[in-house]
């Protein structure tokens, strides 16, 4: 798999946070970026596009990230969801890991962390 093949979905209620991450992804050669602004949209957009990797913030309106994560896993057991959260408290970390998160990032998201995750995905194929 190469970087052009990776399909990334960004779930964040902040249009600013989505834009920052999207700008970075496009700048490094990612071709497919999908966005969702809340938990319900996240599940719908996931089912429509089957992304390779998901970056998900933790406080999202309408459906909590853990509910969204659980629903995504019900649909796709192999989903790779990175919790990119502003609230990386121990409880949230535990919940996210228990729910099957691929990785946990504390905001502000640093570009080199995102790149590391993309590199791993490319390696894993």
């Amino acid at each position, binding site marked *: 798999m190469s970087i052009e093949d990776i399909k990334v979905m960004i779930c964040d209620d902040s249009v*600013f946070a989505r834009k920052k991450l999207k700008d970075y992804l496009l700048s490094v050669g990612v071709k497919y970026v999908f966005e969702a602004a809340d938990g319900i949209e996240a599940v719908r957009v996931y089912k429509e596009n089957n992304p390779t990797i998901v970056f998900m913030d933790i*406080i999202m309106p309408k459906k909590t990230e853990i509910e969204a994560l659980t629903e995504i896993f019900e649909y796709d057991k192999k989903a790779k969801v990175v919790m990119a959260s*502003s609230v990386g*408290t*121990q409880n949230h970390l535990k919940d996210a890991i228990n729910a099957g998160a691929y990785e946990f990032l504390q905001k502000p998201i640093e570009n080199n962390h995102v790149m590391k995750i993309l590199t791993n995905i490319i390696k894993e194929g």
Partner: protein
Amino acid sequence: MYTQFFGNFLLNNKLVSTAQLSEAIELKKSTRLKLGVLAINAGYMTSEQVENVHNMQQRVDKRIGDIAVELGYMTEAQIDELLSAQKTGYLLLGQALVDKGYMTNAQFEAAIKDYKARYKMSDSDLSNEQTDSMKALINEFYHFDTAENAGVLIEYVTLLFKNIVRFIGDDFTPLEAAIVSNFQCSNLVSQIITGAYSAMTAFEANNAAFTGFASRFAAEEMTSDDDFTNATVSEFLNLHNGLFTVNMSNENETELELTPQVFEKDTIFTFEGSAFCIPLVFPFGTVNFIIGSN
């Protein structure tokens, strides 16, 4: 970091008036640091030596630095070091006050020495070892010790200033906190922290300052107060509160939650109890930070 408080320090010690300080903050933008202030700050020249150099310069046509070297006050290497060092905000503030004649070089020298000695300032302002003295400084300026949950409030505001320096810039002067129970807002972003400690937190600013603040955080120029601007300021508040909850979770085993942020325009923000309002004066305008019991 503590450099932001130099302005408050001068005010609290009645070394300048509020009007003089505001004027100097405004002038910072167009102020150029001169060798004298830099040398006094670094401890390379005393204010008396700086005066000597200035007096001599009026008689001979030479640069300040050359005269200082000739008189044996400084070496070339020290001058190079001073001129290439990063220019910090409090020095610009000091320079503006000296330029306006609100302080003499000698008064500036005494104030900067006293300030550094009291708050054990060093160049590595943001290092962790200094967090304790920073907390003391913040408490001294804001008198949070009278507030409910004073300890948490000090932690919170200390982190706030660190995050503003980290993500927005260090060119701000925090003014004295006002206690408010309702607040007329032009643009308001608020977020509630819930759990063992609960609080209402918010940023408020007029259009220009709000957009300026957002532009800094986004690292791109924004021209109007649109949805993207609101989302950007909201995200900064969320980011900061998020980092606070992480600290509370890691250091104090206290689990807190955040509610989604709310943006409001032209509204009156009302508190059941009372809240602290801390005005932060940036070159692009004043941003008010408000924290109150929820």
